[in-house]
């Protein structure tokens, strides 16, 4: 169990990368967040967060996938590492545990 805590945006991005599996990179993440969460995020914020996550060791990146729309430039793909995976697990567990303690919050099926 890691002692560092993820920020809200970092958690969002990290989760997104997991969702997108092997195809996670800057633009796709922005679009996915827009589609799934109806939330406009800026590309630069996404990039910076990804680099921060990489520094923390929760994601790893590799280059590849040059296309014409990008003027022949490669993309930087991100994948979640085992550390990142475990941190997500930890978050989910601790959050669920906490929410279970709220008496009124009942899930209406």
């Amino acid at each position, binding site marked *: 169990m890691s002692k560092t805590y993820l920020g809200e945006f970092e958690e969002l991005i990290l989760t997104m990368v997991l969702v997108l599996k092997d195809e996670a990179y800057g633009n796709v993440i922005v679009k996915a967040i827009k589609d799934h969460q109806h939330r406009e995020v800026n590309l630069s914020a996404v990039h910076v967060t990804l680099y921060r996550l990489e520094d923390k060791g929760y994601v790893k990146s590799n280059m590849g996938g040059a296309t014409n729309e990008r*003027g022949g430039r490669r*993309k930087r793909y991100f994948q979640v590492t085992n550390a990142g995976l475990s941190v997500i697990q930890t978050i989910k567990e601790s959050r669920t545990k906490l929410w279970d303690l709220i008496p009124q919050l009942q899930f209406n099926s």
Partner: protein
Amino acid sequence: MKNARPSKLFTAFLELYCRRSLFESIIGDLEEQFEEDVNTFSVTKAKRRYIWNVIRFFRPGIIKPIIKTQKLNQYDMFKNYFKIAWRSLTKYKMYSAIKIGGFSIGIAAFLLILLFVKDELSYDKHYDQGDRIFRVINVHNDPSNFGRGSNFPAQIGQALRDNFPELEKVGRLISSDWFNAGNNQFRAEDNLQSNYEEGFAYADQDLLEILEIEMVYGDQKSALSKPNSMVISKRKADKYFPDQDPVGQTIILNEEESEPILIGGVMENFPTNSHLQFDFFITLTGEEFWPGEQTNWCCWNYSPYIRITQGSNPKELEEKLLLIKDNYIVKNAIESGSSNVDNIKKYFSFYLQPVANIYLESEGIGDDFSHGDIKLVWLFVAIAIFILLLACINFINLSTAKSSNRAKEIGLRKVIGSFRSNLIQQFLTESILYSAISVTLGIGLAILFLPYFNEVSDKSLVLPFAVWWVGPSLIVFILIIGLIAGVYPAFYLSAFKPIDVLRGSKSKGSKSSKLRNVMVVFQFTTSIVLIVGAMMVYRQMEYILNKDLGFDKDQVIMLQGANTLGNKLSTFKNELLKLPEVQSAALSNYLPVEGTKRDGNTFYKEGRDKIDKDVSAQCWKVDKDYVKTMGMKILEGRGFSDRASDSSAIIINQTMAKKLNLENPIGERIKNWESWNIIGVVEDFHFSTIKYNIRPLSLVLGNEGSIIAIKVDTKDMAASLTSITQTWDVFMPNQPVRYSFLDEAYARMYEDVQRTANLFTIFAFLAIIVACLGLFGLSAFLTEQRSKEISIRKVLGASFQVIFQMLTFDFLKMIVISIILAIPIGWYLMTSWLADFEYRTDISWDVFAIAGIIVVLIALFTVSFESIKASIVNPVKGLKSD
């Protein structure tokens, strides 16, 4: 359909600030976004969003770090460069030696010449008020007869003082051999022994202040203010009055005990870089050489120095000085009935010569000082630069020629990831290393040869190591030379394409040989011009020394100090004539070499003094044996004899006869201030430097003089000298005999020509060495290049001659071109140098032919070293390696 593109400006901005590692993916994402936006929205909106995104990306985490961590590694790179440079240097020892050797020679020559030029340019720059000190020169603007002179009549001092408030001070100088100026017999009153001393001049008191002469004893403002006083230099004071203050002591000159002179002060020795080199100043205060002399405008013997007030304009003053011309000179000429009045009015003007220019820019002024020539100074600077250029060319040629040796290294470096700029840095580092070694060696060579150079150039130069700016300027110098020589090879070598190199096909050497050949031609043209120059100067020197001068200078001994014999003179002369070797002897102060007395007079035909133009001529007082002793030729009439009437007889030279328009001069009467009867015409002889035309001259009888010219005919000069000395000692036991030789005195008049000849030879020699070094390296290299070709030719049956010819022919072609180029350049330079001499040797074809042959032989010799080796070598060796 044209594709919309996002803002180039902001893309550039992004590229500027973004971290290198992130840049590619970020800009890729931005472009992808842009393309989507163009489809989702409009082009304009897409562009706007792009710009907004670029701005948003400008945040920490994306921006490059400010401290560039890459630069920290440069130190290691340079270490590597030096290491590789050193290895390359030691691997190809011969080529490195040639490069460094040539450079060192060039730098040594450059340094020596720089010192020489610096010294020449430093004359008379030490005055505090130097920009206000001038020498007044008169100018004769007649285009057919242009002349300048530094001498004026006696009253010029007062005339200048009275009329021009802009003149703070005016002081006159008499430096020419006139009365007691020049040389004298000198002794303190209580001594018995007189010593011969030189360096006497007459000076006004004000001159001491104008020339800012520092006084050791006595007061600068009054040392010469009393009549019959003098100031002596510190070194003479140390010689005659060691460790005492000699002010107030009495001096006797030339045993004239009735006219003692008081010492008014002791002055500091003149620095070596001053145009004035006097040891004795005799005052002009109260001096009048003959009654009325000081106010008479007839004789021009005084040289005025002035100091103008602060803020005065010398050019305006020159114009104002024309007042003097009108009020004094013209007035005087009219009064004395001279026929030159119109000439004076039309052509006479003044020129104020700044004191700093006197040493170098007094061409044609004809004062008695020794001068440098500004033209020569610039010529030497040009030569220095040329020799340095030659060395640089060697470096460039050899570096580019043997580039194939470095090709693999260059290719490899590029493959591993060097940028071209890195390679350029590397090769510039190499050339700076060479430059540093060469400069150090060059300085060593300069130190070694400085004494010899001082001898040749007649100076005492020192390398200025004590000055604080020596270190930094040396470093700058090394860098500049390294850069100049290294720039072209650096660019050439760094341009190699790795694929050509590693494939092994390129033997990049024979290409771009055009530039190389041009440089070789340049080197040899320079060398040939220098050789031609040296030969011509030597020839002129020979011409000068051997020309028929109109008198016989060989085997003539000049015995000084004869005036001290007093009335024992004629007895002494007779004793001399008894000696078997002595052919003839004559007494006179006037001899046709510089350093003896001169006396300029004005002559005109008797009775026609207001009608004809008068003639300026020398008037020499000689004795009746003079013409015979000097070996001069009487063309018309006769020489002097014992006749009583000969006391008013005069012999004139051909030029004087012509100037006086005398068809039959014998029997005519001419006048200066006495009347003379012309009894003979002597053949023109040179009595001043042959740069100038022979001027009019006359001889009259006079029994005064301090020099006895003795004509001997002997094979044993030493023995003759001993006999003469013995004879002298009988008459003058207290005075050591002092003599010199006429031909030596004559040669000394042309010391500057001799010096030029020597310097030219040295530099020609150096230039040839440097050029040949280059040629040697080049030929060695090219032979190496073609070793395979040579081996194959040998196998196919080529003989030794064929190979040799093949290798040397190309070089010979270049030399021939050099010769052709050098001919017009050499011709032009030589003609303009010889134009200074009125009497000169001809420029003949054989000079160029000889120079050309010398160069061809030397070049052949150089090239044949390698060619012969190549022609003899076993062809197997050349083919084995492939």
